[in-house]
């Protein structure tokens, strides 16, 4: 994995990007239990597989989504995040 395609700026060297971790859904802090909150802030899915992750193209500060196979270190797809309607 040497080149990543930014959805706005096109293919760029991987050194221009920073990793933001897997996309996760935050539970409502006002209503969820302490256990559910601890699970959200600490626990991660550490097994290999295809994951949807946050990445940022640092020079243009563009945050986007990358689908990446973490066992083979191959990027499958990148796209801008859209809120599901």
């Amino acid at each position, binding site marked *: 994995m040497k080149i990543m395609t930014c959805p706005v700026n096109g293919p760029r060297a*991987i*050194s221009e990007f*920073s*990793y933001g971790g897997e996309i996760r859904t935050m539970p409502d802090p006002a209503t969820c239990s302490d*256990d559910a909150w*601890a*699970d959200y802030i*600490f*626990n*991660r*899915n*550490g*097994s*290999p597989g295809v*994951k949807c992750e946050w990445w940022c193209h640092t020079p243009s500060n563009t945050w986007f989504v990358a689908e990446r196979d*973490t*066992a*083979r*270190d191959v990027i499958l797809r990148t796209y801008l995040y859209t809120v599901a309607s």
Partner: protein
Amino acid sequence: MPWRLLRFALSDKHPEPRMFTRHDQLKPAYDVVIIGGGGHGLAAAYYLARDHGITNVCVLEKGYLGGGNTGRNTTIIRSNYLTPEGVKFYDESVRLWQDLSTDFDLNLFYSNRGHFTLAHTDAALRTSRWRAEVNKHFGIESEVVGPEVVKKAAPMIDLSCGGHAPILGALYHAPGAVARHDAVAWGYGRGADMRGVEIHQRTEVLGIDVAGGKVTGVQTNRGRIATNKVLCAVAGSTPRLLDMVGIRSPITIHPLQAMVSEPVKPWLDPILVSGSLHVYISQSARGELIMGASLDPYEVQSTRSTLDFPEGLSAHMLDMFPFLSNVKVMRQWAGMADMTPDFAPIMGRTPVEGFYLDGGWGTWGFKATPVCGKTMSYTVANDRNHELITGFTLDRFRNFELTGEKGAASVGH
């Protein structure tokens, strides 16, 4: 040619005993099954057999002995950590290391070098003082020294680091040492083997049977084994194993890369570490420079290497030692490190009865090999966490009681 070697070549049978007994078949049941034939797993097997009299034990290894992070680290041993939990734990480990060669009757090439953590900024110097005070409180040799002491110990160093990161001082830890890492796995393995422990290489765990919240067996590619106790000691694969028993954890896997240069004449006695330049370096008994840097910045579950790594590391290395510019890099490799949010391991009992975890060893596992074996064998034998590991249990995350070990290797702070 030495006579012993000639005799070896002419003989039909092996005139020398093999290092380990070969077992063709797995038994249907064991008292304890240890997953992972690296330093930690084999040390636990050794102490289970030697100190607790539990010998109906088998160690399962997917590849070959010591082929994971035991054989991929940069072999540094030290105890100048930052938290009281860390300091006590690693100090016990350093003490065990010092007698290990005698214990095994095998030369581990344990070599006491002295360890400098270089400080290039006021903030780093302040952390060094803090670490030195915590260390001294627990009776560990650790002190802040000036740049002239660094220069005296490593005369080839450029104290200005190319002019952009001048060395202001260092944390000096006299007991810092290096050892031959493969020999550690072999020594523990042979010691366990001689006491009746079975070591099965090329045996992969495919699943762990849990019934009513208790471990009942292990599924392998060579059949099922019945057991009530499983110790998981698989750096880099811990999340996969935890998925098999349905435990969630904060562990993520990042590759940690290292490289060695061609062998050169001995010129560097101490071990040097720079957090700001992301460099650690020592010279092996063969004359190779063993060099490491920081973790890869994103999650990957493979031991692939990248070109960015030697490029970046070499640049920083030349800041410190400009005269190395003509020395060639001989090889590079990577290991998969189990990273935790507080840079402390995760050890001990788990919510699944009979499933014990020795994971989250990130970038700091090799130096802890003896004490992990000792404390985990106690924990498995008595079904009770050893007092030295109570700060490292999995439920510290659920209880919001993190350990915060910023003295770990390759961590910028």
